[in-house]
């Protein structure tokens, strides 16, 4: 296609400008990728925690299995209680062993006697959760009641903050990218005034004249998107081992390639729009 050829030859003639545009776009894309991944991660984390028991009551050793079962039924009877699970001392030990299998030092010290049995309760809403907590606290056989609510609350706040900061940064960087493309294309148009005049005298319409410039903007956007995405993917792979140990037991990682490809698709789209937008603005302002 003539216009694509023209766009590429324009790019080849000003490699530094092209580099500036692509790097700016890729920075935007990189930041966007990171924030998208963080948001997706937080949301997945949130979902995970919501399915986990939200209140855990650690039972005193004096409480036998029968009594524990009795308590379990009592809690189950409360409205909006989704699930009550009894974890015996032995089960607690095997879970602990599984989580810390890479750390022999921790495994040595712990036997079934040390770990308490527990009741793990999940509810459908906050009110019943509070009620359950009250009931458990008032029980004599209960050593300690741990609320997961705080974790979820903190996580929700964190997710909200990540989203807001991310949106702000992406908006800012996106604007910068658009402006960079606008400036570069404007310069190109100014530089090519003679060529444009020739095209017009021979009867070229506005579309024929402006399309190579718009294509150029889109090319910058696409290249920048791919570059930024690529770097973010590499960073993700690099940090996955570290993150995996941090998030033991939570099935967040590794991130599926399908998710990453979807992110890439979205970024290429946004990159093209930013590039095309910048070029269109330049064309509207500076092309007679």
């Amino acid at each position, binding site marked *: 296609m003539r216009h694509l050829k023209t766009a590429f030859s324009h790019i080849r003639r000003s490699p530094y400008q092209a580099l500036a545009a692509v790097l700016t776009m890729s920075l935007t894309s990189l930041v966007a990728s990171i924030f998208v991944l963080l948001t997706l991660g937080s949301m997945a984390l949130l979902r995970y925690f919501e399915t986990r028991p939200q209140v855990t009551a650690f039972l005193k050793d004096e409480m036998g299995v029968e009594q524990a079962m009795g308590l379990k039924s009592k809690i189950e009877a409360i409205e909006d209680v989704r699930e009550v699970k009894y974890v015996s001392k032995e089960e607690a030990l095997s879970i602990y062993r599984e989580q810390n299998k890479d750390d022999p030092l921790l495994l040595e010290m712990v036997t079934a006697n040390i770990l308490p049995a527990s009741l793990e309760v999940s509810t459908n809403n906050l009110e019943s959760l509070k009620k359950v907590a009250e009931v458990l606290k008032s029980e004599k056989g209960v050593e300690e009641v741990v609320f997961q609510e705080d974790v979820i609350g903190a996580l929700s706040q964190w997710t909200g903050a990540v989203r807001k900061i991310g949106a702000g940064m992406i908006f800012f960087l996106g604007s910068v990218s658009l402006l960079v493309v606008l400036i570069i294309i404007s310069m190109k148009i100014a530089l090519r005034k003679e060529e444009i005049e020739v*095209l017009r*005298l*021979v*009867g*070229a*319409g*506005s579309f024929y004249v402006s399309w190579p410039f718009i294509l150029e903007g889109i090319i910058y956007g696409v290249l920048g998107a791919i570059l930024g995405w690529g770097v973010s993917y590499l960073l993700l792979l690099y940090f996955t081992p570290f993150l995996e140990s941090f998030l033991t037991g939570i099935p967040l990682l590794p991130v599926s390639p399908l998710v990453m490809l979807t992110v890439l698709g979205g970024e290429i789209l946004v990159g093209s729009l930013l590039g095309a937008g910048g070029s269109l603005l330049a064309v509207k302002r500076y092309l007679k």
Partner: protein
Amino acid sequence: MANVSFEVKKGEFVFLTGPSGAGKTTAIRLILKDYLPTEGKVFFNQQDLAQIPKKKIPQLRRQIGVIFQDFKLISDWTVFENVALPLDIIGSKKQEITSQVEKVLKKVGLWERKQFFPAQLAGGELQRVSLARALITKPLILLADEPTGNLDPACAWQLVKLLKKINKEGTTVLMATHNADIVDSLGARVIKLDKGKIVSDEKKGKY
């Protein structure tokens, strides 16, 4: 220009002469609707140019062939691509373009140079490339704005011979020039301009 009025009929060969600043280029640019008249009307092919909206100006220009003193070729493109431009603009297919370009380049004698760039060609050749580009859409009229201005006498004559040939084949030619020799030798219609006014309009004129 002041109170200039003339009519060019189909198939004519008309010289527009006069010293620099007489209004020759202005006249040509008015026909292209590059300049707008402050008073009066310009008709092309019986159509009032004032009635043509800005969006449709490209269509108007595609019916007119133009060559200029400074050739106005695109330096990044080969001869072939420069000549193919008008057809590319109207969206002709690749084979059609290739065959038309070959025809017209052969007519001006530059088919062997089709892959050359403007920087590699001499003035006379460049003007012939411009001419080829102007003719490829088989326009009704060919406007020539001082086409021999940057050419040596030999090339100038060669070009005018080509123009005569094209005119004989049916294309109307309107040529602005201040090359007295050429005007005198052709015996064609001469419209003399001076300071924006028509001084004379003779059927077989002299400079």
